[in-house]
């Protein structure tokens, strides 16, 4: 019993040490993004001659040049395309793919949860396959379809794969299934149409899962790299992730500007997260329970 207590304590201490290391591991990239974006190019090339403190912290926290250069497009790697252009493109694609995704997720989730009709099982398993098959795999043939429709380098083309999310269908279906059928029956007895029930009874009861879906979907759309990389070649149509990768293709990397760009690209999502933080955690935790 005593020996057990000692080993328990030792384990607890080890666990805490590792948790602190974990904290450092997770936070260091964020901290370095912020600190580096204030550095001048000279400070970075001079790193081998500096002390550890000066390698980490910038000489001045008031050096907003990198952020300005990147934002307005005067940074050399951007070839005059301002970074805010990429941010606007990403905002457009994220927002306008969210609306159809939400619409399709809600309607199909409702249909699967509350109705029975022939072929429902087959359609459901086809949608399930969509989660199993990573988007990248469909991207190559989908490129051909989009190419044929002359939608490369357009917002519509960029939005297409994001317009339907099987994850949304499942998440919303699970939540709608938890609503008792009697709620719907009550509506029907009062003579309400199915559409009225959908909008006035079902949707107000699942606002929590809807927010979860919105936040996760925005994160995915915002961070999508593979699909826009395939279909966008015009500089002006590039999204944030594509704009970022411009910095990484050079042999010589201007790290201070890179970090400024990363910082700019994270800020919009950070705002979404401050609002939806709790919902996302709950959503991800419960997605495992359903899986």
């Amino acid at each position: 019993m005593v020996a057990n207590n000692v080993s328990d304590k030792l384990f607890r201490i080890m666990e805490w040490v590792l948790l602190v290391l974990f904290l450092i591991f997770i936070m260091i990239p964020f901290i370095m993004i912020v600190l580096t974006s204030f550095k001048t190019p000279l400070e970075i090339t001079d790193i081998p001659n500096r002390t550890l403190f000066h390698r980490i912290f910038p000489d001045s926290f008031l050096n907003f040049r990198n952020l300005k250069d990147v934002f307005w497009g005067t940074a050399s790697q951007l070839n005059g395309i301002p970074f805010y252009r990429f941010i606007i493109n990403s905002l457009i694609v994220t927002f306008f793919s969210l609306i159809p995704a939400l619409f399709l997720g809600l309607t199909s989730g409702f249909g699967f949860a509350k109705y029975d009709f022939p072929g429902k099982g087959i359609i459901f398993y086809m949608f399930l396959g969509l989660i199993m098959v990573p988007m990248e795999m469909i991207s190559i043939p989908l490129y051909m379809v989009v190419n044929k429709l002359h939608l490369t380098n357009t917002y519509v083309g960029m939005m297409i794969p994001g317009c339907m999310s099987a994850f949304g269908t499942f998440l919303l279906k699970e939540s709608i299934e938890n609503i008792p059928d009697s709620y719907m029956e009550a509506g029907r007895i009062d003579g309400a149409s199915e559409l009225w029930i959908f909008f006035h009874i079902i949707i107000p009861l699942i606002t929590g899962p809807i927010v979860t879906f919105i936040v996760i979907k925005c994160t995915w759309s915002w961070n999508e790299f593979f699909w826009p990389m395939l279909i966008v070649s015009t500089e002006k149509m590039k999204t944030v992730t594509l704009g970022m990768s411009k910095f990484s293709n050079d042999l010589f990397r201007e790290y201070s500007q890179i970090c400024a760009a990363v910082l700019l690209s994270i800020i919009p999502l950070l705002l979404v997260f401050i609002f939806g933080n709790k919902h996302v955690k709950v959503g991800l935790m419960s997605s495992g329970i359903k899986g």
Partner: protein
Amino acid sequence: MKANNKLKLTGFMFIFPSLIFFLVFFFYPLLLCFVNSVSKTNLLLGTREFVGAKNFVNLFQRDAFKSSVIITLRFVAMSLPVIMVFDLFFANAISRLNGRANRFFTTVSFLPFMVSMVCAGIVWDWLLDPNLGLVNSFLHFIGVGGKPLWLRGPKSALPSTLFITIWVRAPFGIMILLGGMQNVPKELYEVADLDGVGPFRRFFSITLPLINSQLLLVFTLETIFAFRAFDQIYTSTGGGPGGATRTLMIYLIKDLFVNNYGIASALTVLMLLVMFIVSFIQQMTVRRKVEY
């Protein structure tokens, strides 16, 4: 009876928009992919002729394909155990914390979820830069010499991409596992504590068996994810140095997609097959567990 039929139709109408979208933009491309894998396709002219298994034969004859298969398998073999142990250990450690500490660590472990693979790849490339990066600066400071090349070294590049992968993927796995651990009845741990059960037995005898459906989900998703690793490698090493990190996806996009659509489709079909088998095995394992 009539009302019942009407309800059936209504239900179908709710699914109809999704079904159409699915068939046009997901199912049709998938079929197209299978067709293209056995044809010679010219994207510009729009012509297509049947060539049988020629694309597959051609693919298997390429040395770059063979090397990228090996690199991908090595990546899966390296990253999977590391990620699983990492996720499990920290999910367990966080779930044992109470109150404010629990909330704090849950939020922190979750932060990288919002960072794209692209940003993560770029940032870790900066931290691991052999001359200017923070990691080597720190090693220098504590007196460890030798300056590892990390992502720039032919041997160390592939293992180094694990830093990026773990950093970005950990939140996802940890969250799902935490969700499972929250559902383990507290009484079980209390009884175990009374019996003087140590932390290892506690974990292996109580926690692990009760979260195995979440564990399997994370395991499958991470396997598939490691198998198709692309973004973080593309932006940090670009497949280099000297092809040392050229995984199947990098090979598919950088070498095949641009100039050989048929072979690219053949490779896609093969990868789909592997992923399907992995998912299928997972499904079977879950089913069997439920039956017992």
